[in-house]
């Protein structure tokens, strides 16, 4: 077996370990949530018997360990449980909401990466000039700005002042423009900073000087020779951000009232919908961990020198 295969196998095994831990943690956390879901469902004025019957129906009268193994067994069969309130299987809810979150993540990351990498490369090539300082300052500001505030500003400008886009709600691609823009804005700073520092390391290498001496055009030198070698830390960052966004841009989805995964999670927490919280959180953790793993493996395509131990 080659290094890469061994590495992937090892990472997959440790992935299962982590996910098992996550499932235990999520199960325990959710059972520590105060309040009796059975009581919540049957209503405040229901009799003790009705509550008891509901508890039995939900399996809440079983010992904790039995409940956990029931839960795990269902998970293995692909059953994430059923929402206590809508009666719809959590998995179906996730499937119907995921496309919105996915689109947001893709548009946002593409936008943020394109602009961020470009700015970072420019800053590195023009190191210690006014332009470099400007990019650096803007990146630091973008990192420090509270995202909910930036979202409100974007809404104020594009929805209220210009009237170009809807303020909130989901109605096709058009309503995803502003949310994607804000998500892109959040990641520009980090990607620009990382690109700059990674490019600076590369620019000083001997082969860059050789290329210059050979008369390779500046842009070809920077992009073909430079960026290609500086790309690994940038990919890590983009992968992490993408994973985080797939988990649902909670604030963006909430402010724009987009029915994605993040909004779904917040709603479930507020309503104390235990199966939904369990299902969503586990799904998010799975997605996040898998995206990180894939990011690690993608390196090898960009840099064959990467050896996996």
């Amino acid at each position, binding site marked *: 077996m080659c290094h890469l295969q061994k590495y992937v196998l090892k990472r997959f095994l440790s992935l299962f*370990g*982590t*996910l098992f*831990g*996550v499932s235990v*943690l*999520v199960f325990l*956390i*959710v059972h*520590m*949530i*105060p309040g009796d879901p059975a009581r919540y469902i049957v209503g405040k004025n229901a009799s003790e018997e009705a509550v008891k019957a509901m508890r039995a129906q939900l399996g809440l009268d079983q010992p904790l360990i039995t409940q956990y193994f029931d839960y795990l067994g269902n998970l293995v069969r692909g059953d994430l449980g059923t929402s206590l309130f809508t009666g719809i299987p959590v998995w179906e809810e996730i499937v119907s909401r995921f496309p919105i979150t996915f689109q947001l993540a893709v548009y946002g990351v593409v936008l943020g990466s394109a602009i961020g990498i470009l700015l970072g490369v420019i800053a590195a090539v023009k190191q210690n000039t006014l332009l470099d300082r400007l990019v650096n300052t803007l990146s*630091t*500001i973008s*990192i*420090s*700005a*509270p*995202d*909910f*505030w930036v979202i*409100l*500003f974007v*809404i*104020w400008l594009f929805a*209220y002042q210009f009237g170009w886009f809807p303020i909130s709600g989901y109605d096709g691609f058009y309503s995803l423009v502003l949310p994607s823009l804000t*998500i892109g804005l*959040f*990641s520009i700073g*980090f990607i620009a*900073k*990382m690109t700059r*520092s990674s490019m600076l390391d590369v620019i000083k290498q001997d082969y860059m000087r050789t290329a210059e001496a050979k008369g390779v055009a500046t842009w070809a030198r920077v992009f073909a020779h430079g960026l290609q070698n500086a790309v690994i*830390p940038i990919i*890590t*960052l983009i992968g*992490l*951000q993408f*994973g*985080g*966004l797939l*988990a*649902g*841009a*909670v*604030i*963006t989805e*909430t*402010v724009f009232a987009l029915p994605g995964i*993040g909004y779904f*999670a*917040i709603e479930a*927490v507020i309503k*104390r919908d235990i199966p939904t*919280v369990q299902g969503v*959180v586990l799904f*998010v*953790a799975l997605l*996040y*961990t898998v995206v990180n793993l894939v990011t690690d493996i993608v390196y090898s395509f960009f840099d064959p020198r990467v050896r996996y131990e």
Partner: protein
Amino acid sequence: MNSELTKYSADPDVQIPVIEQEIKRGHSQSHWSMLWKRFSKNGAAISGLLFLSVIIILAVFAPVIAPYPLDQINFEERLLKPSATHLFGTDDFGRDIFTRILYGGRVSLMMGLISVTICVVLGVTLGVVAGYYRKLDMYIMQLMDILMSFPSLLLAIVVIAVLGVGLTNAMIAVAISQIPQFVRVVRSAVLTLREKEYIEAVRALGIRDYQILLKHVIPNILSPMIVMTALIFGDCILAASALSFLGLGAQPPDPEWGAMVMESRVFLNQAWWMSLFPGLVILLVVLSFNMLGDGLRDALDPKQK
């Protein structure tokens, strides 16, 4: 930290070096004064420090400085634009926004301070134990891996789901969501340190573990700890204000900056100043902490620059 993205583990700032101060006695004075010399040349870091000092003084002396009483409601002065009488304008209850921001500093800065303290205490303990005791390392890092399988804001929200909505719980939730990155930095610093000859030497002398940790390990990882604390402070304030914005942290009418931005949402089109100023203050405070952290890192390790 922008709570929406998982910026922590990918933050270029997290690669914080261990600076060794092997000869401590007698040299520490000049060591710290040299640090200050390097630090004070960094304009951005100094302006961050100055701005933070001003904000802290304003928050502490809010009752003296504030032009109006905290909760003075005046419906005749609803939604007034910024002017000489109301520097930052008034909100929908006719309350002076400048006054509320001054008082809000007490809540927001305190939320940051307490969550950072919890984070540092737990993070250093777990990180030192994981780095020093190889047998416990696996368990602690496995737990951190599990915590890191959640994006940090979601982790904080889940913690709040268990503990309930409110200021104290929000601080605990923020601390827990930031701990993994702190543990990782401390652990890796301790890992490099424990292989050093002088640590081996004191161990050979038969000195007890807790004494080695307190006297030889922790003093030598102070540099990365200080830098990390400054950087995490900004992140904690951002995360705490995000929770308040979502209605999970500070509750209106408490004048917390994030909660003030939430209240302003409805009036965004009529009264931009209601959202602008509290958000701007959060931005400036977090920016100051980040510049301070960057400055400290450069001063503590000039090679990195």
